[in-house]
């Protein structure tokens, strides 16, 4: 299987047409199961029932970062090799990433209220996510502002590259600026047991669910973009004729 086969939008539409129902089903099952299982876990002895928020907070935060990375890779593929579907996939991913960032920020704020006694703290992790959200907003705004689709893809691609560097730079600059309240990574391979199995398995399931949800939404949104562009191309041809 090669991604170049899917540079042909018709081929992409055919393949995803068969794939989508399965993906949507799997995403719905994993998401629901992960979140419901998470909701039914016992309370943590220190954080009480607020520990249940982790099953939304962590997967959303994880996806918020990974979606940006995916957009970066898709933009690179577009800039280097003019893979049209790749550019549209980057465009399609951005709103999903922005919503994931928003979920991570919102659940974090709601969680922080009883735990830290404040809705918002200028903590490195929180601040980095706010900055990430700003980058998503700028990226989406640039896509919607440029009319010519190929130019828009090029410009947003360059913005995504520069933005990635600066998002990373801001992450460490912010760390320098203020040490925070946020706990370190809850899941880590090296550090061994940091989280009980009771929480860990539903969390993995919720992560898988969020990932599948992203994939399903991404495919649907990319298909929407392909259809829009096809319609625009057909209309442009008629105008010329």
């Amino acid at each position: 299987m090669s991604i170049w086969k899917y540079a042909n939008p018709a081929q992409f539409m055919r393949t995803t047409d068969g794939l989508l129902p399965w993906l949507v089903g799997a995403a719905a099952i994993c998401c629901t199961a992960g979140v419901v299982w998470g909701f039914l876990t016992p309370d943590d002895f220190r954080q009480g029932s607020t520990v249940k928020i982790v099953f939304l907070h962590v997967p959303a935060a994880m996806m918020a970062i990974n979606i940006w990375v995916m957009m970066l890779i898709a933009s690179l593929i577009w800039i280097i090799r003019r893979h049209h579907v790749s550019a549209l996939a980057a465009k399609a991913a951005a709103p999903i990433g922005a919503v994931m960032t928003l979920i991570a920020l919102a659940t974090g704020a709601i969680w922080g209220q009883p735990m830290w006694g404040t809705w918002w703290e200028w903590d490195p992790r929180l601040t980095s996510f706010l900055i990430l959200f700003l980058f998503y907003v700028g990226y989406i705004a640039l896509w919607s502002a440029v009319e010519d689709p190929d130019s828009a893809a090029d410009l947003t691609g360059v913005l995504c590259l520069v933005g990635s560097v600066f998002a990373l730079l801001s992450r460490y600059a912010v760390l320098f600026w203020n040490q925070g309240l946020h706990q370190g990574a809850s899941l880590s391979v090296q550090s061994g047991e940091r989280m009980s199995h009771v929480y860990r398995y539903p969390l993995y399931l919720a992560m898988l669910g969020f990932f599948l949800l992203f994939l399903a939404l991404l495919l649907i949104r990319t298909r929407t973009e392909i259809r829009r562009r096809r319609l625009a191309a057909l209309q442009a041809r008629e105008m010329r004729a």
Partner: protein
Amino acid sequence: MIDLGRYATTVLMAYGVSIALIVGLVWQTVAANARARRALEEHDRHG
């Protein structure tokens, strides 16, 4: 119904906001897709 203790509002609010955001995103995605498909079909039918 499970007991959420004194953090009930917090937990429910977090779940409520998240689910609302996800449902909104899904709804927007599906609606936009349906709109694009309909527009394309319309165009095909009229030539």
